[in-house]
């Protein structure tokens, strides 16, 4: 059942009634909000100002917006210098270029240097669609979460993206925020709790349905990004088949909320991770690292299975690469079947 404390929208499962917005839109709003709160906030963009929705900030605070041209390495370096001086710089581009192309500058000049630059990678995931594999960033979570000091946040909808943008602005750390191009359902609200490093249970096992009492017919789905909505739909459909699923929004991939993952493993006895990213090195790997050290249970991985994407529309690609509602349901059944 939906966790009431998570304050999700009413009519959650009726997609036709939900507002559709891309997470990059929430980022654009978050930039303006952070900019209003603090004059130290500056935004740098590599020739993708409208596309990353940095243009609202640029219009409102032109003196604090810097056009960098197609030069992501220099963008990371200039931001590093500005943060070193005392500013709070956001750098906006597509995730394949930033943190893709400028990975070394992010590692050495932002993270080892320990200056609070905020890297925003838009157009992450397979849902980028028709642009094809060159522009579908599927490795960025792995690239960022392996670097010491880097915080990694993957918002599940536009409302959460706005909160995440403001939160990383003031966390004092190098941070990565991952954004999507495609519109997706807005299912959280302003009241939904959001704290960096703290995962939220969106759907819990009904009381008395924990592993011991439900004869093992339960699973926890841990996800991040827009696919979390598919996870909630899958959980609802599975419930009708007598399978109960917990759904956890692990928006912060690093530092990951170990406590809630261990709790989910103990309660549900099986885990499915869901992300629009390579299964190697992303959220699924982060969850597996926690479980293998603390409380190993069967785990299945929804994500890109070590391959590149291709052109197509978003829904087509999500389905073709096994990240749709049906695929999540199958993965849940598989994970449960593996319980001893």
């Amino acid at each position, binding site marked *: 059942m939906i966790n009431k404390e998570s304050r999700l929208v009413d009519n959650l499962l009726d997609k036709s009634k939900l507002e559709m917005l891309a997470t990059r839109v929430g980022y654009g709003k978050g930039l303006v909000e952070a900019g209003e709160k603090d004059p130290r906030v500056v935004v740098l963009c590599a020739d993708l100002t409208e596309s990353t929705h940095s243009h609202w900030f640029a219009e409102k605070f032109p003196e604090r917006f810097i056009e960098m041209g197609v030069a992501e390495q220099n963008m990371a370096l*200039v*931001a590093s210098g500005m943060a070193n001086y005392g500013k709070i710089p956001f750098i906006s581009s597509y995730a394949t270029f930033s943190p893709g192309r400028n990975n070394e500058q992010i590692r050495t000049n932002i993270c080892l240097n320990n200056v609070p630059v905020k890297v925003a990678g838009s157009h992450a995931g397979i849902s980028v669609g028709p642009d094809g594999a060159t522009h579908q960033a599927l490795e960025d979570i792995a690239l960022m979460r392996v670097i010491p000091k880097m915080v990694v946040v993957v918002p599940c909808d536009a409302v959460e993206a706005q909160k995440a943008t403001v939160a990383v602005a003031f966390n004092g750390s190098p941070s990565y925020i991952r954004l999507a191009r495609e519109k997706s359902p807005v299912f959280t609200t302003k009241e939904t709790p959001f704290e960096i490093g703290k995962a939220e249970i969106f759907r819990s096992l009904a009381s008395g349905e924990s592993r011991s009492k439900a004869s093992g017919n339960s699973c926890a789905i841990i996800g991040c990004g827009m696919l979390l909505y598919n996870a909630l739909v899958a959980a609802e459909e599975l419930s009708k088949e007598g399978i109960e699923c917990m759904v956890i929004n692990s928006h912060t991939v690093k530092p990951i909320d170990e406590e809630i993952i261990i709790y989910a493993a103990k309660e549900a006895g099986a885990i499915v991770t869901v992300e629009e990213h390579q299964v190697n090195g992303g959220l699924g790997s982060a969850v597996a690292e926690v479980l293998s050290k603390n409380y190993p249970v069967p785990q299945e991985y929804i994500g890109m299975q070590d391959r590149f994407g291709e052109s197509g529309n978003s829904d087509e690609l999500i389905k073709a690469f096994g990240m749709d509602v049906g695929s999540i349901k199958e993965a849940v059944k598989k994970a449960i079947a593996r319980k001893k």
Partner: protein
Amino acid sequence: MSQYISEEKTQELEIKANEARQLLIEMLTVAGSGHTAGPLGMADIFTAMYFHVLNHDPKNPEWEERDRLILSNGHITPIRYVMMAMSGYFPLEELKTLRKFGTRLQGHPERERLPGVETTSGPLGSGLGQAAGIAYASRMDKKKVRTYCLMSDGEQDAGATWESAMFIGKNKLNNLTAVIDRNNIQIDGMTENVMPLESLKAKYEAFNWNVLEVDGHNIEQFVDAIEEAKAIYEKPTVIIAHTIPGKGIKEIEFDYKWHGIPPKPEEAKKFLSELRTLGGKIVSEHQ
């Protein structure tokens, strides 16, 4: 005759640069690894920076109004450490910890470990962009901070250097002065064989920079160029400083093999004697 620095001051700095070279040889020998040629070649410029040009306070390295010295080619950091110790950032004794486990004097400098180094550096092509960010931010805040970026010639191979050069030229960051250590060597050999750079002057001019060229061992010329750059408001300035790698020790001068190795103790003895006697011109009291 310079209008910016007296003859007496110049002579004082030349003596300091010689002392710095001695400390450098001693610290590298104790460390047993590190770069020798580049730091020796930049000893005169670093001495001019730390004891004449920079507006800084060694007792208060985080002072907001300080000039920023960004060392892009972090591998020549030993000469910066020597300067910092000589000017009072930390005790001279600490120089002997270079590259040892637990030291603040890392093989390549780290901002988090040692206040005053400004940026973590070493990977080439990354200093100019950071200097640009500092210069841009301080201009936004209308501060009279000046940012200096010291670079090697080898790192002019790097694409990021030119991204940064383009950005600085576009934004006319005249509160930034870059200095290129034009010593013509890099790890794999002579720069013009590895990847030809000339004409460096024409390249920077095409990127909307003011370009000055000096003898990097002539402190008076260098100081004049630094002051001239401050008077130019329309453009950023880069000073191409022609230097001799290994300057001050004949056996090391011009030899690219000395890029990344330290002297052995026996060699160090000979080199220190050469420095103390100014190449045999004076008889040392120690002989």
